[in-house]
């Protein structure tokens, strides 16, 4: 009796563990989180555009809003999702380092002022010397700060970093009379409204380096990739058209993101969206992307984001559309692929 109960219980546990890792068949789950450049995904799902494209390729796509950005990437990396919206840096340091071969399927936009360094009692990056800076460590904010410091011949040792949750950063900045923060929108907007706050650096000074993308498992079927690309560019076409539909779409996205229409429009201004697939293809095939990824991987390695025991930034390989690879050719885990966006630009989806 005892033995049976025990064995039964063990069996249930093991079966449960195995099934939860198994693939869900023909239905694919895609994760996203709230960010200006990703609101079109919510719109695509709400208006049925995504479903339409999924049907066209004979699959099912379930778009899931995960309310915590890092959690959404962690869920993707551990196998719960087939695709997830994330930045180029996080795509490298979380799924790629975690051994999940990932493809940057859609390059949606780059931050062009959506991330910034704000301080009181100072007006240039040099004034940051010796100051306490609040930011989410290891995030794109951290990357932006290091780039800003490097451009001003300073290093991380010149400042003191304080890891601070992005949910609290704006309120803490407001209450601190000698505050300095690095953050992104919408909290960036809130910090700039504080009396005495000065924007000393933002991502428009390093254009094209903080990229927001839809990342998909490299082994996911072409149907999923095509359906996602198709739905995305249909929404992009609506947003950039001059029709009434464009205004309605913006209103819907603003409401969904919890911002007013004016705020959302202001955020869109500092987000360099690629409204046509042709622009995105050109960007992805450009040589600047390689330079950017070199910066990003150097930063990630120096911060220890490749994990304990990794002694070389060549540990992981990054592949570009022209087939060139930086890093380990035998361990390519992040691939920039322009081919699906290319098909979209040719109107052949």
């Amino acid at each position, binding site marked *: 009796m005892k033995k049976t109960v025990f064995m039964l219980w063990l069996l249930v546990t093991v079966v449960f563990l195995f099934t939860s890792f198994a693939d869900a068949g023909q239905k694919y789950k895609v994760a996203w989180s709230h960010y200006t450049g990703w609101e079109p995904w919510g719109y695509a799902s709400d208006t049925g555009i995504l479903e339409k494209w999924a049907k066209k390729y004979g699959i099912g796509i379930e778009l899931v809003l995960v309310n915590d950005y890092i959690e959404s990437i962690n869920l993707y990396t*551990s196998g719960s999702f087939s695709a997830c919206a994330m930045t180029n840096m996080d795509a490298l340091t979380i799924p790629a380092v975690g*051994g999940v071969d990932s493809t940057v399927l859609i390059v949606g936009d780059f931050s062009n002022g959506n991330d910034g360094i704000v301080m009181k009692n100072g007006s240039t990056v040099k004034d940051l010397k010796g100051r306490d800076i609040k930011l989410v460590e290891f995030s794109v904010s951290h990357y932006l700060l290091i780039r800003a410091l490097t451009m001003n011949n300073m290093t991380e040792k010149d400042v003191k970093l304080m890891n601070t949750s992005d949910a609290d950063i704006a309120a803490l900045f407001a209450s601190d009379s000698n505050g300095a923060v690095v953050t992104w929108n919408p909290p960036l907007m809130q910090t700039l409204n504080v009396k005495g706050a000065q924007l000393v650096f933002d991502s428009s000074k390093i254009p094209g380096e903080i990229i927001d993308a839809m990342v998909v498992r490299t082994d996911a079927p072409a149907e999923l990739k095509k359906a996602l690309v198709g739905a995305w560019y249909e929404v992009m076409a609506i947003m950039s058209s001059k029709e009434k539909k464009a205004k309605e779409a913006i209103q819907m996205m603003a409401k969904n993101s919890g911002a007013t229409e004016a705020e959302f429009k202001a955020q869109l201004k500092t987000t360099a969206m690629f409204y046509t697939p042709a622009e995105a293809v050109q960007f992805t095939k450009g040589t600047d992307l390689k330079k950017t990824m070199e910066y990003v991987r150097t930063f990630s390695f120096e911060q220890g984001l490749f994990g*304990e025991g990794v002694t070389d930034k060549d540990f992981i390989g990054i592949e570009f559309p022209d087939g060139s690879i930086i890093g380990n050719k035998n361990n390519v885990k992040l691939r920039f692929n322009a081919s699906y966006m290319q098909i979209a630009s040719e109107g052949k989806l």
Partner: protein
Amino acid sequence: MPIFWGIHAKPPKIWKIVLGLLPFIILVSVYLTASHVRLERNSDDKLLPSIGKMIQAVDGLAFTKDKRKGEYLMLRDTLSSLKRLIIGVLAAAVVGLFLGMNLGVFPGFNALLMPFVTFISIIPSLSLLPILFISFGIDEMGKVILIFWGTFILITRDMYLATKAIHEEQIIKALTLGASQFSIVYKIVLPQIMPRLIETIRLCLGGGWLFLIASEAIAATDGLGYRIFLVRRYMAMDIIIPYVLWITFLGYMMDLILRLIIKWRYSWYVEMRKGG
């Protein structure tokens, strides 16, 4: 006599050891199996790292000087966290002891403060976190105050109850023997509720850890909770799992030390409890 089933079961000594270890063995083997399955599929998987990977991570954090900061990170995290926890809980113990004791002995004092203490004891401490951070800053002060706040009311109320439980005859007797009010509090009541205070601290430490980790997660430059929430950023389970085990170990050791203090200093209390 049954060995395992039923309320009359008397497991022999060897069985007790085996039964006690069983849940641990099951947990570890389920983990190892699942980890093996995942690593088989993807050798770089980070969700369920192998034991070797965790040892490597601990080695890097605990026994190798950090490249950038030039210190042992795990040691620094541990010291910072323990400092915050100990200061917070000790302050709570001192305030709670004196407040509770006086509430129990002096009716006038009780009338003045008891309704207030009861009222504020209902405020959930974690909901105060944003307010504490903004008013006391996110440096050490804000964190210590959160831990203090989260534990001192429970200690106060327990000290109050412990004082109330002292037989009135004792106090009357002391008074007839010519004791002053002051010496009643400090010579009769205080020694009797000291072991109970340590017991309460033991129970409060769990909550103390919770508040410590919560405050370190929101804003910090070091600490055990800080590290866990920092490396979550790149899903370093090989660091998170050893840190959780380390926190558990530290908590267990603190509990053990407090238990030993009671046994060593207040053996009468242990006997009294046994006797019911």
